[in-house]
């Protein structure tokens, strides 16, 4: 029940962002800051993979940014 609501909520957010946000954003020549390494959403993939692995081993939650990091026998 909660999970179906969450899935529908994310679909709603997605369609809102796709259709309602066509006036949001930047022109091609305004991407100077966005191109910087510090502005990439996952600028330090090794660090985030290590941290995700630590938290996955010590907590009950997983997921978020992405997947495909490989399993381990820790949880």
């Amino acid at each position: 029940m909660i999970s179906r609501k969450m899935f529908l909520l994310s679909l709603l957010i997605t369609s809102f962002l796709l259709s309602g946000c066509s006036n949001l954003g930047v022109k091609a020549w305004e991407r100077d800051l966005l191109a910087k390494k510090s502005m990439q959403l996952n600028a330090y993939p090794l660090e985030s993979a290590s941290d995700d692995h630590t938290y996955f081993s010590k907590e009950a939650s997983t997921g978020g940014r992405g997947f495909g990091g490989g399993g381990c026998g820790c949880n």
Partner: protein
Amino acid sequence: MQLITQQSDIATNKTTGSIALLLAAASVNLISGAQAKDAPWQVDSSLLVYSESDSRVIAVEPIVALKKDLGDERIFSLKMTLDSLTGASPNGAVASNNPQSFTGPSGEKNYDAGAGETPLDDSFKDTRAALNVNWEQPWDERNKISLGGNFSKEYDFTSLGLNAAIARDFNNKNTTLSLGVGYEADQINPVGGTPVEFTAMVYGEDETEDLKQTRSNETKDVLDLLLGVTQVMSRHWVTQVNYSYGSSSGYHSDPYKVLSILDNQGNLVNHPSAEISNWYTYENRPDTRTRHSIYWANKIHLTEDVIDFSYRYYTDDWGIDSHTLDLRYRYEFGGNMYLEPHLRWYQQGAADFYNLYLSQSLHTSGDSVTLDYASADPRLAELTGTTFGLKYGIEFSRVSEFNIRVEQYSQSYKVNSSSLPALSGLDLAPDMTAMTISVGYSFEF
């Protein structure tokens, strides 16, 4: 990808004239030519040391990743991880005012807990080796696909996984929609065999090989789906929302963890069978697990500095709900150096079948546990985790950097005591604190 877009937009703008057109064409040729012939390998490496207080787990994890653009944005990457673990972990039994003895997984090496001490299983030393490979390429002007595989091996666990994703741009590349799927097959081969759930742990002098009931190897399959939207909000702000779904089926229990069975005073009880003294039962978790999460991430560029803020909500059908807040502030202080404090706050609810211990009168009948499932694994308890960290980095170029970070992580548990007389004054779930130091170096060759 964004910079190349900028150049091609200039090239197609007819009012800038033929000089710009020629320059753009030349630079595109130069770049694509150089990439096709001798594009560099990008190397990213890190070494992490993780250490828990009170002689618990110590982990050392070196990672090396290689990446190369083989031309036309077809990118191959490879990552090798080594993870060496030693130390002790709570085995799920509660502390007692009397010393306790437990049998190690193979039956020979026993371990003890003193009076008032949390029982820790120190018998595990394990090294994990993992390999990830990934291939990414544009499908057409607006779409990009990626395919990946991962393999992981440790003494008692083997895992093989595949994943695929597609990303599509909209609104002048201001919006990107991503869809990913991953499948993983795990094989679990516990040291000493897989104990049958809810059977009693045999220990010490009572030990005869026959008494531990075991099964052969176990397996688990995991399916993951991800739906994500990345949106450029302004020149200074990019945001991402991901919905993840996970479904796993197979063996989920921890073969090395038990629960204490206590009487109404809080004392350990004898197993009804004459051959076993203190009754500790191996845990039992469901055969399936379904998970959902929503993750929202942001990068905000101030005048010089960058704020990284994310939130994740997670829920699963084991009854666990959690919230994660993560905040970093990257302070640029010249000379291409930065300092980045980090704060993470995590809060989770307990699994439906989590119990600190079991009661002989409430949860057993004769020599059987009457519950469907039970686990005393602290990782399934109601807990709060807090991380404080600081990272220092120096960027030699856009592709070369050295950084070092120190983090402290501490967990505290909501339920950590009992009103039962024999357990009064005992901390049944002591806080856990861990320090992490990690060093990273990336370069091109």
